[in-house]
């Protein structure tokens, strides 16, 4: 019937199966003008917060390439990193439109200094081990899914469309992380201990996710509203994983300022040095 398996899977007459089929542009038909009554500068600031969360989290996930415990998981983690990179690109591009500067996504990602990044500190911390990374992914995806689910009703149609695309992606990220947390937590004595250690190490960064920045509640979703859903999901996963909810105190702020204000941990500088080195060495290069 078919010469190879993929011919049976792709659309009629589509010889380009390697490039995918049936893809839709998430922003197709969406009005991209900033809605009246919305402060463009505030919308841009909010897009940078959500975009930087995705960009930096994606970078930490990409670091598992060539280091993941199994080839199959390496592909899965790379897919998740690519999903988040896609969200970051749309959000950073939106920021450049909303603030009127017309800056592109690359300019935001590669040419800003550390203090201009608005991501929460959870995403910038280095990968300690696989358990830590899965605990962080569970926390991040649970929080972001709750956020995106509310953002689909945003006053900004572009933000709403980006959120609608993200909900489908992040729901799978949460599922992937939760399965590993349960598998390792409810596994052997050693895997249980390491999973518990990973979760405990992630916990100091959780509080910041729900304190937020005034811009968030003004133009988007107040992160404090997400806490109840987050706690319920975590409780369910940790019960199945036979893990204890950590009581590690929250990481201190710097005079009340943290990631959303551009105040980052020591590791952020090293991360950006790697993320930006090629773009800074070859300004205006195209690829």
């Amino acid at each position: 019937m078919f010469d190879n398996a993929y011919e049976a899977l792709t659309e009629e007459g589509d010889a380009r199966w390697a490039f995918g089929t049936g893809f839709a542009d998430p922003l197709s038909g969406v009005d991209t003008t900033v809605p009246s009554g919305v402060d463009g500068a505030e919308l841009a600031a909010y897009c940078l917060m959500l975009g930087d969360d995705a960009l930096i989290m994606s970078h930490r996930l990409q670091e598992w390439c060539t280091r993941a415990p199994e080839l199959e998981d390496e592909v899965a983690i790379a897919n998740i990193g690519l999903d988040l990179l896609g969200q970051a690109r749309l959000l950073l591009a939106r920021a450049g439109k909303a603030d009127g500067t017309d800056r592109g996504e690359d300019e935001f990602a590669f040419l800003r200094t550390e203090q201009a990044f608005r991501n929460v500190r959870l995403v910038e911390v280095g990968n300690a081990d696989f358990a830590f990374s899965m605990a962080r992914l569970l926390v991040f995806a649970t929080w972001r899914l709750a956020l995106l689910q509310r953002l689909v009703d945003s006053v900004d149609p572009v933000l709403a469309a980006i959120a609608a695309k993200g909900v489908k992606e992040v729901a799978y990220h949460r599922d992937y992380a939760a399965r590993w947390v349960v598998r390792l937590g409810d596994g052997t004595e050693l895997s249980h201990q390491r999973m518990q250690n990973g979760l405990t190490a992630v916990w100091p960064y959780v509080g910041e996710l729900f304190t937020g920045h005034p811009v968030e509640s003004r133009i988007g979703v107040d992160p404090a509203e997400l806490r109840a859903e987050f706690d319920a999901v975590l409780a369910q996963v940790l019960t199945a994983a036979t893990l204890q909810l950590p009581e590690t105190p929250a990481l201190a702020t710097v005079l009340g300022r943290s990631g959303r204000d551009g105040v980052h941990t020591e590791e952020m500088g090293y991360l950006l040095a790697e993320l930006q080195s090629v773009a800074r060495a070859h300004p205006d290069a195209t690829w």
Partner: protein
Amino acid sequence: MTARSNWPLYEVFVRGKRGLNHVHVGSLHAADEEMAVRHARDLYTRRNEGVSIWVVKAADITASSPDEKDPFFAPSGDKVYRHPTFYDIPDDVPHM
């Protein structure tokens, strides 16, 4: 604990959007069936190919042996009357 190298091999079958049957697309390693389905999703349906996935342990497949190829398959080679080529198929009969 199962050593990583001991994760069993699974064969993956995917049914495409317009396909009527599941098609073998490849194999992967996984610790159990549930993980195998998820790995298959990540490895073999990244480009929007599939709507349904089957996985089965490679060890559970019973296969014909290449050594017995001749007695196994050769006798059907000259029995042309087994092919339904001697009558017309109406145009409105699908999937033939």
